[in-house]
C-alpha cells in the first residue's frame, strides 16, 4: 500500500506534506521525493518478492477466511466437519441472532461498552496528543527536552507492564471496577503525542503561524483555523492507532474489571470461550466465533473509511522519526 503512494506522487496529501516541508526549509525530503527522482521508472518485477507477497497474503487471509466460514456453522458442524469447509447447515444468521440474544443480550451490552471506551478513550487520547504535540512542536519553553525524554521513555514501557501497578493505584482511589479504570489509562498516548509532535514540526510552517500572529489572530484561533487542518493527516493516524489499541484492549480491562456488565468485547468473548472448560462446561464455540467476526467488522469499516489519511499519515511519520 505504501509503495503505491510513493510511486504515484499525485496523491494530494503527500504533495502537501512535501511542499510544506520544503517551505519550512527542511533538509530531509519526504518520501514522495524518492519517486520523483525517477518518475518514469516502472517498478521492476521480482519473482521472489511476488512469491513472498503472495505467501503473506495467504497468511493474512486464511485466518479471516476461517473465521468467515466457521461463523456459518452450528456447534455440531464445528465438531464434525473440516475446518476450512462449510458445514451441513448454513447457520450464519441463526448464529448472529443467538450471539445478540444469549444471556439477555450481554453481547450488545459489551459492544456498547467497547464503543464507549473507544469514543471517550481513543477520542480523548487523540485530542490530548494533538494539543500537546502541537504545543511542544511550535512553542519554545523551558523543559521541552525533559518532556521529550519522558515521552520517549514512556513509549518504551509496554502497557502490560504497567497494568498491575495501575491496578493497585486505582484500587486505592476506588476506581477499579468502574469504566474510568479503562478510560483514564487509554487517554494517555505517548506514541500519539510523539507522532503529532514530529509531524507538526514540518506540517505547520512557523512562518504561517507568525503571519497569523501579525494579523492579530489569537493562538487558539490560529490553532483551530489553520494548524488543525494542516495537521489532519497526522491526527487521523493517531486516531486510528488509538482506536485500534482501545478496541483491542484486553489485559487492562481483564484485571481492572470483575463485573461483566462493564466488560468490553475482548474480555467478554474470552469469558465465553472459557465457558468450555472444566466442571459444568458449556461450550459455545459457534457464538465465540460469530462474536469475533462481529467484533472486527467496525474496525474493518473504520480502516476502509480512513485508509487514505492513514497512508499519508504513516509516510509522514516514518520520515521524520
Amino acid at each position, binding site marked *: 500500500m505504501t509503495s503505491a503512494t510513493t510511486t504515484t506522487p499525485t496523491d494530494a496529501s503527500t504533495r502537501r506534506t512535501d511542499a510544506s516541508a520544503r517551505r519550512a526549509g527542511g533538509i530531509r525530503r519526504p518520501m514522495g521525493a524518492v519517486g520523483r527522482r525517477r518518475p518514469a521508472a516502472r517498478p521492476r518485477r521480482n519473482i521472489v518478492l511476488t512469491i513472498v507477497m503472495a505467501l503473506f497474503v495467504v497468511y493474512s487471509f486464511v485466518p479471516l477466511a476461517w473465521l468467515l466460514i466457521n461463523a456459518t456453522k452450528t456447534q455440531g458442524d464445528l465438531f464434525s466437519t473440516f475446518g476450512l469447509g462449510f458445514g451441513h447447515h448454513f447457520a450464519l444468521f441463526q448464529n448472529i441472532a443467538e450471539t445478540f440474544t444469549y444471556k439477555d443480550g450481554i453481547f450488545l451490552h459489551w459492544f456498547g461498552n467497547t464503543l464507549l471506551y473507544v469514543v471517550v478513550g481513543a477520542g480523548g487520547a487523540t485530542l490530548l496528543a494533538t494539543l500537546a504535540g502541537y504545543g511542544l512542536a511550535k512553542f519554545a519553553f523551558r523543559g521541552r527536552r525533559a518532556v521529550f525524554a519522558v515521552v520517549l521513555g514512556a513509549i518504551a514501557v509496554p502497557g502490560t507492564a504497567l497494568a498491575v501497578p495501575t491496578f493497585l493505584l486505582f484500587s486505592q482511589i476506588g476506581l477499579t471496577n468502574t469504566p474510568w479504570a479503562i478510560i483514564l489509562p487509554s487517554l494517555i498516548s505517548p506514541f500519539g503525542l510523539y507522532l503529532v509532535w514530529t509531524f507538526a514540526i514540518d506540517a505547520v510552517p512557523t512562518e504561517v503561524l507568525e503571519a497569523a500572529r501579525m494579523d492579530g489572530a489569537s493562538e487558539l484561533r490560529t490553532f483551530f483555523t489553520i494548524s488543525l487542518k494542516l495537521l489532519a493527516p497526522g491526527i487521523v493516524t493517531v486516531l486510528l492507532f488509538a482506536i485500534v489499541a482501545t478496541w483491542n484492549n484486553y489485559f487492562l480491562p*481483564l484485571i481492572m474489571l470483575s463485573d461483566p456488565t462493564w466488560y468490553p468485547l475482548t474480555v467478554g468473548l474470552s469469558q465465553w470461550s472459557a465457558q468450555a472448560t472444566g466442571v459444568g462446561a458449556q461450550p459455545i464455540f459457534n457464538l465465540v466465533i460469530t462474536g469475533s467476526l462481529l467484533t472486527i467488522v467496525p474496525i474493518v469499516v473504520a480502516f476502509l473509511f480512513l485508509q487514505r489519511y492513514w497512508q499519508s499519515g504513516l509516510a509522514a511519520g516514518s520520515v521524520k522519526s
Partner: protein
Amino acid sequence: MKHSTRSSALRRLASVAAAGAVVAAALVGCSSSGNGAGGSSTDVNAALKEGGTITYWTWTPAAKAQVAAFEKAYPKVHVKLVNAGTNTTEYTKLQNAVKAGKGAPDVAQVEYYALPQFALSDSLVDLKQFGFDKLKKDFSVGPWGNVNVQGKLVGLPQDSGPMAMFYNKTVFDKYGISVPTTWAEYVDAAKKLHTADPNAYITSDSGDPGFATSMIWQAGGHPFKVDGTKVTINLQDSGTKKFTSVWNELVENKLLSQTPGWTDDWYKGLGNGDIATLITGAWMPGVLESSVPQASGQWAVAPIPTYDGKAVNAENGGSSEVVMKQSKNQALAAGFLKWLNDSKQSVDIFVKSGGGFPSTVADQNSDSFLNQAPAYFAGQKINKVLVDGAKNVLPGWQYLPYEVYANSIFADTVGQSYSSATSLDSGLENWQKQLISYGNQQGFTVKAGS
C-alpha cells in the same frame, strides 16, 4: 483434564503477580481479621433474618437458579451474582483484590487446588468460628479433606471429582477390546486400539498438570508436603514413579492424542471415537451429555484402573466456596454459604443443572441419584460406579501453596517431555527444580525431598 494448559504469556504474568502477593501477605503474618469478624452459629441465623446484601463470585452455570431460590427463602438477603471469570482468571482478580485490601466479594468459588494459596495469605475466614466443623459428616472424604487446610476450615465443598474411567463402548466393542481394570491392561488396550485405527487414541494428554497430580495422588504419591511456609517437593517419590512407569510407555510410544483438552478438536474427538477414554472426575457426565450429543448411547463408566487390583482413587477437579476476610458481613456470607452447599434444595438444583457431582453424602447416596439411568450412557446406572469410587479416595493429599503458578509452568517443563515423546521423569525433575527456586524467591523455605 481439569486445568487448561494453554499458557498465554499474559495469564502467566498475571499469576506471577498474584502469587507474589500471596507470600507477601503470608509473611506479614496473621493480621487481625476483617470488620465483621467473630460469630457463632446463632449469629449466622440472626444475620440471615436481619438481611443485607452480599456479593458472590462464581462461574458455575447453576448459580443463577441457586441464588434465585435462596432469595426466595430469605427475602431480606440480596445476593449480587458476578461471574468474574473462569478459574485462573478469577483467581488473579481475587488475589489482586486481596493485595489491594479491597474489592473482594463476600463469597467466592475457588477450586480445591487453589485453596491453599488463598488460605496461606490469610484471606479466608476460618469457618470453625461459625461451628461449621460440625458439618463434617455431611460431606464425603475427599472434598472435606480439601477444604481443611493447615488446621483451618477455609470453605465448604460445592462439588467433587472422584475419578473414574469414561470409555466409548462402541469403539471398544468394534475392535474387541475388553475394559481394562489395571493400568497394565490399559496400556495394552491403548496399543491394540491405535494399531487397529491409527486415528484413534486411548485418550488425549498433551501435558495437563491437574491430571498428572491426580494420577500421582492415585498412585499413592505425596510429592508436595507443606507445613506452614516450609515446603518439601519430591517429584520422584515412589508414587510418582509408579505413575510415570505406566504413563511413560504411552508417551514414549506416542499412544496419546496430542489434542489439548477443552478445545473444539477435543470435543470433536470425544464425539467421533478418536478419543476412546477419559480418566477424569465424576463431573464429566454432565459435560458429555450437553456438549457431545453426537456420541449419545456410546459412552459408559468403569472404575479407574488400578496398579495391583486393589481399588484406590483420587480427586480431579471440583470447587469449594469460601468466605473472604474482606467481607463486611461474614456471618451473613457464612449463612448463604451453608445454604448454598449444605441444603438439599440448593444441591438438587446444582446436580440437576449438570453442573457437577455432589460432595454431600446424603445426595450421593439418595436412591433417586443412585438409580438414575441416563439414556446417554445407554441406561447404565453410572452414579453407582461414581459414588463407589468416591469412597476409595486416598486421604492426606496436599497441594502446593502456589499451585496456580506451578500449574502455569507445567507446559514449559513436563510438557516438553510430552511433546518430545520422552520419559516424563526428566520433565518432572525440571518442574521440581523451577518450583523450588520459585518458592524460595517468594519467601517459602522449599527443599527437595528424598
